[in-house]
Structure formats: structure tokens, C-alpha cells
């Protein structure tokens, strides 16, 4: 039994004029503690898929199971990180980090200390009483990570959380995130359109195609690359080989997609 199981997930968006087929028959499984990437061009339904797993929207068809039980029948916390930090500008950093337990009505008095501990863990001290606009983009995304971890999520969903950062910050944060998640043994799904990021961070990659969004192929990242930090991984020969392979595959998909459109 896998930790997370998606079985035949399909999704359609309805409105008065259209019925958009966003996801088609998506099935895959994730083992506990694994890091999975969903790689695909924009518009292939990555955000839709994460929103479904996070139960923000209901899939038109299909089921999701976590630890063998339907996900919607359990009161489990799922962490969701977005492209940008979306910290609330009118709340202090500490209050931002604490919002999860408060919303879930699970607030206990020790949580302020827990939040401060997490902030230290993400490398930020003495900023608890500052406001988000006093922090840099990289710091803010770290706060967002702390906020996400605050509810001890059983699953972490990362929707291109590095895409709004400059390259250097992004590399540092990638490495940092991987370490954190290994520490906490989190099962994570990362959505990205950056091939390098997918290879450097994941155990497994699912390549997606668009129109409708579907899993095209499953790529296992070789052991040697997997065990390196994202920065080191980028220097490994196997990384480059895999990069080329995926690059070609994505180009192929792109051409097919263009051809099917005309």
C-alpha cells in the first residue's frame, strides 16, 4: 500500500460557454517520505491537480487515498505552498506563521514557541515581530515554509514555490528545503516547469502533457543524483544526461501538441 494514491482523477471546469477538460485519467502513487515532481508546460493542469489533492476543489471523477483511506474522510492537514509567499502584510511574521492552527481551531498555548522554533529552523531569528514587507523574497518564502510546517502536514504540496525568486536565492532555498523535508520526513509533491529543478530535487518525476492534462511518463531519478544536494546534483554527469532526455521528450510533446491544435 502506498502512502498517497491517485486513482483515475479527471477534472473538467464548467462555465456557461465551455466545459474545459483540464485533467484526464491521472493515476499514480507516492511512497512515504518521497519527493515527487510534476513537470509540464503551463496550462497542463498542474495547479488543478494540486488543488484537488489539497481538497480545494473536488475532482469530476476519481478518488484520492492517503494511508489507504479516502482523503476527504480524514481530518488531516495538508501543506500548500504557492508561487509567491502570500504572507498577510497586516500580520506580523509570528502571526503569519501561526495562522494554520488558528484557522484549524487547534491553537494551544505552546504554539508561539513552536512557531519561533520553526522560524529558527528555517534560518530566521529576531524577525518574529517584523512585518512581511521588511523581509526579502527569499526570507518571505522561508516564512511561508514555516507557516506550512506549523500544522504538521501529512503531505506537502509545492506549486512552483521558487519561480518568483532570483536564481541564486532559488538554489539556496531548494537545498534548504530538501534538507528540511528530509529532516521532517515529509512526503512532498512539487509542481514545476523547470526541468533542472525537478531533477535536482526529486526521487521521481512525472512528466505531464497538456490538452487535456495527463501523465505522459514516469522518470526515476538515478540514485547517484538523488542523494546529492540540489546544487551538487546539477554538476553530476547523470543530471545532464537526464536533462537532455527530458528536454527532448518535452519538445516532442510540444510539437505534437501544436500539431493537434491545427
Amino acid at each position, binding site marked *: 500500500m502506498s502512502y498517497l494514491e491517485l486513482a483515475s482523477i479527471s477534472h473538467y471546469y464548467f462555465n456557461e460557454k465551455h466545459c474545459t477538460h483540464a485533467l484526464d485519467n491521472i493515476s499514480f502513487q507516492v511512497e512515504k517520505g518521497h519527493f515527487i515532481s510534476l513537470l509540464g508546460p503551463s496550462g497542463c493542469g498542474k495547479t488543478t491537480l494540486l488543488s484537488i489533492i489539497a481538497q480545494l476543489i473536488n475532482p469530476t471523477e476519481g478518488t484520492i487515498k492517503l494511508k489507504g483511506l479516502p482523503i476527504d474522510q480524514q481530518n488531516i*492537514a495538508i501543506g500548500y505552498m*504557492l508561487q509567491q509567499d*502570500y504572507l498577510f502584510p497586516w500580520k506580523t511574521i509570528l502571526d503569519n506563521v501561526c495562522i494554520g492552527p488558528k*484557522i484549524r481551531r487547534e491553537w494551544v498555548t505552546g504554539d508561539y514557541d513552536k512557531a519561533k522554533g520553526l522560524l529558527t529552523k528555517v534560518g530566521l531569528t529576531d524577525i518574529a515581530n517584523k512585518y512581511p514587507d521588511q523581509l526579502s523574497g527569499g526570507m518571505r518564502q522561508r516564512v511561508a515554509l514555516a507557516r506550512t510546517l506549523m500544522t504538521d502536514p501529512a503531505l506537502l504540496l509545492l506549486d512552483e514555490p521558487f519561480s518568483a525568486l532570483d536564481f541564486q536565492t532559488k538554489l539556496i532555498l531548494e537545498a534548504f528545503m530538501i534538507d528540511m523535508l528530509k529532516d521532517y520526513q515529509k512526503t512532498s509533491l512539487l509542481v514545476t516547469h523547470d526541468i533542472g529543478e525537478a531533477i535536482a530535487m526529486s526521487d521521481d518525476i512525472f512528466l505531464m502533457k497538456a490538452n487535456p492534462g495527463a501523465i505522459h511518463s514516469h522518470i526515476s531519478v538515478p540514485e547517484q543524483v538523488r542523494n546529492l544536494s540540489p546544487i551538487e546534483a546539477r554538476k553530476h554527469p547523470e543530471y545532464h544526461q537526464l536533462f537532455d532526455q527530458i528536454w527532448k521528450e518535452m519538445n516532442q510533446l510540444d510539437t505534437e501538441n501544436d500539431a493537434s491544435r491545427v
Partner: protein
Amino acid sequence: MTPKTTHPAYNVYLQQLSREKRLIKYGQSIIFICFFAFWEISSRLHWIDPLIFSSPSRVVNLMVRYLLDGSLWFHMRITVFETLAGFFIGTIAGVILAFFLWYSKRFSAIVDPYLVVFNALPKVALGPIIIVALGPGYSSIITMGAIICVIVSALVVYNGFHEVDANYIKVLQSFGASKWQNFKEAILPASLPTIISTFKVNVGLSWVGVIVGEFLVASKGLGYLIVYGFQVFNFTLVLYSLVLIAFLAALMYQGVAYFEKWLLKKLR
């Protein structure tokens, strides 16, 4: 903080700046003095009918007299109270209405045509009906002051609610937030600047509602003094009330503007 630097040209620039400001002040004072001087002179020389247009000296005399016998304070107090009450009630009711419009899409769709009509309607035309319904007293006048700004602020604030970045809601929903929690934690605080921006407009609108209301029913207040002065052909009284209203409305507007600045700064 950038380090403090200076340059000889900067002093010249500062001097020019204060000179410009001084010139503007002069210009404003000249207009003010000329206007009242011309009014006074033309009234004395009978270029205009002093019985209709009065004169600044008569208005000032009246003002001093009413200030001393307490009637200035009496009428002013009533009108200011009605305006403030109308303003607060109208604004708060507008925000509450906006909340319901946001909370239920269906409700907002159902009431949409009525809002459009009611928004387009000149609210002061409702005056007689309000007075018949609520009786000739404070409540009618305050209602006039409130009703004139409630719909427009509801629509503006509702718009503001919609402009809040949906991703804030997504963050909250990922923690399982209810609709009310979404409102309390994201929608309302993010829309506060919009809500505050309706204050200045609303305070002006409330003045209109209250003065018209006083025209229609009141036996006290500045609007009443205007109508009364008109009826007994005492235009010094009319102009006195007018000057007072202009002064108070400007003061209130400035007060709200300062309040707005202060609040926005606090929210930062």
C-alpha cells in the same frame, strides 16, 4: 535610511520650493480678500441689492450675535450630529450589505437589478416618503443622510472585496478555513483601504442628505435656517448658514482625510 547628503544646489532648490509655496498662499489670500471686499463694496454702493445679497459685515455681525446668544452652537450642533450619524450609519450599513453580497453569490445575483435602480435613483427624491414613514424628526433626517451613501459605498466596497488576490483565500482554504474565516482574515483587512476611501465621499453625501432633510421637515439646524431665512426674506441669515455649512463641511472633510491618512499609515 539613505545617508544624509547635501549639495549647494539643493539649498537653491529648497528656496525655490518655499518661494513657490509662498506664492500659492498669496494667490489664495488675494482671491479670498478680493471676493469679500468686492461683495462688501458692491453691496454698500448698491451695485447689488443688499436686501438679497446682504454683505459680509452683516453676516459677520449676525454671526457674532448668534455666537453670543448660543444659537449658533445650538443649530450647528444638531446638523453636525445628524451628518455624522448619517455618515456612520450609511457607511457601516454599506459595508454590511457588501458583506452579504460577497457572502452569497445568489443573493447578489437576485438583488442586482434592484441595486442598479436604487443606485441610479436620486435618493433625496425619497425624502417625503421617509418623512411620512419615520415622522418629522431626527430619525428621518439621519436616514436621509445615511440612505444617500449606503448603496454606493456597498457597491464600491463589494468591488474591493472582489479585488483581493484569490491566492490569500487559497492559503486560508488550504488550512480548511470557513467562509467567515476567509472574510475575517483576508477579505476585510485587505479591503480596509477601499473602505476608508469611501469615507471622504460619504461625508460629503451625508451633508447633502441632511441639509435636504432639514429643508423638508426640521425646525432646527442649519438647513432649517436657510429655508426659514428664505421664507422671511432674511438673506443675511441664509448666507450666514451657508458660510457656516461650507466651513463645517470643509472641516469635516479634512478631518476624514486626516483620519484616512492616519489609518492607512497604521495599517502599513
